[in-house]
């Protein structure tokens, strides 16, 4: 297929669409980022456009192109600041998409249910996933106990501060953290170039996987981190997102900050290497089987009645 992707934007959606792009190219699709120019749209003549309500583009009227738009929650659950705005709902509806998709599993359907119930637009569960084209186990020496890559600002600090910082401040832990935003002194080693990320994750024995407060509460918007590091053979230890337990069965999930720190210390100890390696292997296999962008795109294609393409994503 010929597929246009929303322009590369910063933040999570940028990384997520990198993963989508890599998976599509891996299966031989012709994929381009689209800057918004109408002439280039018709020159490319896409079969599918993948856009985002948070990064609006002026999609031309083109009945030959299927439209899929990433959207935020819109349902009976009122999550202040997380739900889609009225303006965005109206914009998405005006584009008459074939489907919309959001960062939730099928079991999270209620949280996006008004897209279908009130606006008659099919919602497709498409949580974040692991990019198996980019992330893999390099089998190099894991010289750090903990690796972490990510941003910190006030909202993220609500979970990072009580969970991650006590782990990093423990004398028994060696760590390296790359990222951006507002980290406390002497913790962050700065931004890491994208082409170094896989090797960086491979240096760690474990990776603490942080999510935001609404993810703890509602179980949606799972960050990519757990899927990525598992592909690298680095043990993912997640902060408390209990709804993940039946989605990623081998994932180590903590119950509270004290338990999170205990788990990080336990699995980083040399004496527990065998147990750690066994679990990390299980995590990697589970992600490869169920949680790559190949898996997610198969679901998307299936929802668009592209059955052969859906099947081929998993071939």
């Amino acid at each position: 297929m010929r597929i246009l992707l929303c322009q590369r934007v910063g933040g999570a959606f940028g990384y997520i669409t990198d993963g989508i792009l890599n998976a599509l190219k891996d299966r031989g699709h012709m994929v381009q980022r689209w800057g918004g120019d109408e002439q280039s749209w018709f020159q490319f003549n896409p079969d599918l456009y993948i856009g985002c309500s948070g990064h609006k583009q002026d999609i031309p009227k083109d009945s030959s192109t299927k439209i899929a738009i990433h959207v935020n929650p819109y349902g009976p659950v009122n999550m202040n600041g997380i739900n889609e705005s009225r303006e965005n709902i109206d914009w998405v509806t005006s584009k008459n998409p074939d489907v919309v998709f959001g960062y939730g599993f099928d079991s999270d359907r209620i949280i996006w249910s008004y897209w279908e119930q009130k606006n008659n637009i099919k919602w497709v569960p498409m949580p974040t996933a692991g990019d198996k084209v980019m992330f893999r186990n390099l089998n190099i020496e894991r010289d750090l106990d903990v690796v972490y890559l990510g941003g910190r600002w006030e909202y993220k600090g609500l979970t990072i501060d009580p969970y991650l910082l006590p782990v990093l401040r423990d004398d028994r832990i060696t760590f390296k953290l790359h990222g951006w935003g507002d980290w406390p002194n002497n913790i962050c080693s700065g931004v890491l170039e994208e082409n170094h990320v896989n090797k960086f994750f491979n240096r760690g024995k474990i990776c603490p996987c942080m999510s935001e407060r609404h993810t703890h509460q509602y179980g949606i918007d799972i960050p990519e981190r757990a899927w990525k590091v598992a592909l690298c053979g680095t043990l993912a230890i997640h902060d408390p997102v209990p709804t993940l337990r039946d989605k990623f069965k081998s994932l180590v999930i903590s119950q509270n900050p004290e338990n999170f720190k205990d788990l990080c210390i336990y699995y980083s100890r040399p004496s527990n290497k065998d147990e750690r390696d066994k679990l990390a292997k299980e995590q990697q296999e589970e992600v490869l089987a169920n949680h790559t962008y190949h898996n997610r795109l198969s679901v998307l294609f299936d929802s668009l009645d592209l059955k052969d393409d859906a099947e081929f994503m998993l071939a």
Partner: protein
Amino acid sequence: MALATDKIVFLHVPKTGGIWIKNALNSLGLNPIEIGTQHDSFPELFNSEPREFFENKLVFTFIRHPVFWYQSRWAFRIKHGWQSRHPLDFNCASNDFLLFVDKALSYKPDGWCSWLFERYISKDTGLVDKIGRTENLVGDFIDIMREAGHDVDEQQVRDFSFVNSSDMDGFGSKYWAKYSEELLDRVMVVEDSIISRYYHDFPIDPKTLCGSRNY
């Protein structure tokens, strides 16, 4: 916390109408005092007051039919968020009602509700005098208060508004949380300990409880 007046002590089982009772006691001008933390039962309450304190009052609590309790509990968490420190949430959380109940029944094969309610209604301490049913919250409350010697105005109590903390968009938990017939049957079996003792006379209509989900 438990609530106490000079004549009664109320033990608050989660998701059984306790907030309404608290509001009612306050609205009736009975000025209840709070004892312990929100959902304490015996023997924890003895950390706050001696046994004699409770022996001199009518101690009551409310329970709810387990099929309704699961609906209410799930909808409350969907609306307000899961709490991973709570074992039921940590082990059974799901934004899909059927999955949540399925996991809860597997997690506690002898019934989470039966286990929870038993903590409050156990006859071991010999202190619980009355058990009301949430399904007849107002009527049972009036009867219990009168038996305890509080002279309550029935119409005033019936006029108190309900606090439906699980409602979403104007619909209650029974609307959002639909059972499959198979799952409903499993709840009835797993929670038989409570149902057979306190709800053997209570009709359950699968037609109103089962159906396709409203989302």
